[in-house]
């Protein structure tokens, strides 16, 4: 019984998601990530159930745990009522707690994700905030989004939205009191601390690499090594 495994077992997702795995592979068979990455969720479950700390540590430091798209399709098929997706979520949390996430390319992306998503939540009350979703960073959103972005207030008005306005409705301005409550929740549930740690780790890395924050963000936003793929 290893220490990392014990820490993992404290996570409710692991307790819920891990029964004895029989390595049947039904999860991998339909996993979108297994389809397009060098990735096998079954192996991850198997490693975790072996409780070998060395292997778990290797996992926490690897890119492997970051390939999952958390679609949770794996849950449906498992004959043993395991949930590979939940186990991976627990592994990711532990990787962040232990700082091992900084050892992998995909793990380092946490910096940017934490920054952007939580900025939206704490400032606007939304995970995705239309006004912050820029065509320049999302060419795939299409030329139509370029048009929406240009006329965003008009378009929201036209479509029954309530962009940044008082009262209920789509993309309304959420009262500051409610946003304060969210911040408080963040503070007491450890989210604030976690975000701080991720931020500091990222900034430290940027400094090591001799990059400005912006350059570092650009780097982790775009880099993609071929080793992630089969073939």
């Amino acid at each position, binding site marked *: 019984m290893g220490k990392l495994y014990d820490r993992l077992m404290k996570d409710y997702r692991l307790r819920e998601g891990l*029964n004895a795995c*029989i*390595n*049947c*592979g*039904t*999860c*991998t*068979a*339909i*996993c979108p990530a*297994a*389809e397009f990455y060098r990735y*096998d969720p*079954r*192996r991850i479950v198997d490693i975790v159930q072996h409780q070998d700390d060395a292997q778990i540590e290797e996992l926490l430091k690897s890119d492997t745990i970051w390939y999952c798209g958390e679609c949770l399709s794996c849950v*449906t*098929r*498992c*004959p*043993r*009522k395991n949930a590979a997706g939940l186990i991976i979520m627990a592994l990711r949390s532990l990787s962040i707690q232990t700082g091992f996430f900084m050892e992998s390319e995909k793990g380092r992306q946490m910096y940017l994700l934490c920054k952007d998503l939580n900025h939206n939540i704490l400032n606007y009350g939304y995970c995705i905030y239309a006004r912050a979703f820029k065509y320049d960073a999302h060419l795939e959103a299409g030329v139509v989004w370029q048009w929406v972005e240009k006329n965003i207030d008009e378009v929201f008005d036209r479509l029954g939205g309530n962009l940044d306005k008082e009262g209920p409705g789509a993309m309304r301005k959420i009262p500051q009191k409610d946003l304060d409550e969210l911040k408080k929740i963040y503070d007491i549930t450890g989210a604030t601390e976690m975000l701080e740690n991720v931020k500091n780790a990222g900034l430290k890395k940027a400094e090591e690499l001799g990059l400005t924050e912006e350059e570092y963000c650009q780097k982790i936003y775009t880099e993609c090594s071929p080793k992630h793929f*089969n073939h």
Partner: protein
Amino acid sequence: MKNNILVIGGGPAGLEASAVLSRMGYNVILAEKEKRLGGHLAKWDRLFPDQTPAKEVLDGLLDGIKDVKCFTETDVNSINLLDRSFNAMLSNGITILADAVLLASGFDMFKAEKKEEYGYGIYDGVMTNADMEQVFREGKTFSPAPKAIGFVHCVGSRDEKAGNPACSKVCCATAVKQAIETKELYPEANVYCFYMDLRMFGRHYEDLYLRAQKAGIRFIRGRVSEVAETSEGRLLVKAEDTLSSRPVKVTLDRLVLMAGMRPSEAGHKVGRQLNLSVEEDGFFSSRDGFLSLQKSKLPGLFYAGACTGPKTLPDTFHEARSAAMEIDRYIKENFRK
């Protein structure tokens, strides 16, 4: 006076036990709910591991029950224990007072449609092991000749979600046997077996496996995850080849599901009336797991065959014979002093 013995279930266990008991001089009454005697054996074509025709075995069994009173298409409407004997009312109106009862209610096939993702009853090409045996038995052929056929082991076995975490014991050997027979019928076809563990535990079973391998049957270690129908009406099957840690897909013309063994519903009906205890897996529990396998907790009520869990045919016959011995002993000890 001859003692009456009621045998419930006219499958291999019931037939063999009835034959032995009637040879011993008992008055055996056999109740079978179906039209035909023989249970699942009557629906099977050939038996593993040596492909003996099921009919040969069944004929042998039927030869032995000439002196047995057989009621087919007969349910046990009610049964209860009076003092020392059992009083059973059959659905044909006959009431029987029996000194001993042998419960040989066997098993039901797992309802393959419960594994929704395999699409049994939804996709045309998906069938079960029993369907396949019927095809073999009736000498039907698939037309056009299939280019690829798959066999899925452990359907409704080793599957908590399907309500049966246990192994059904016979499916591996059945799958391999059917795969070989299929390959013999369609030598050009690619035949795949999707397995998790190959449980080839019996004598000659491993030879069967080796024979299948040599015939070019491909064994893929991975449970089928999902089946879908393509635009040409073929079946797209997805699994993981766990030995190479990669997802795999293959297009098949037929997919045969190895439906496992579940406790018989009709058997449960009898069991409930007598308050017989069942274990977690739904099969009846014997008095103990070693020395009193054929005995129930109720004096005078005995078990044989798959009503106490998945069994192979030889296992079933051994149980039937030992149940007959136990009944004989029981009668002699309790009724002939």
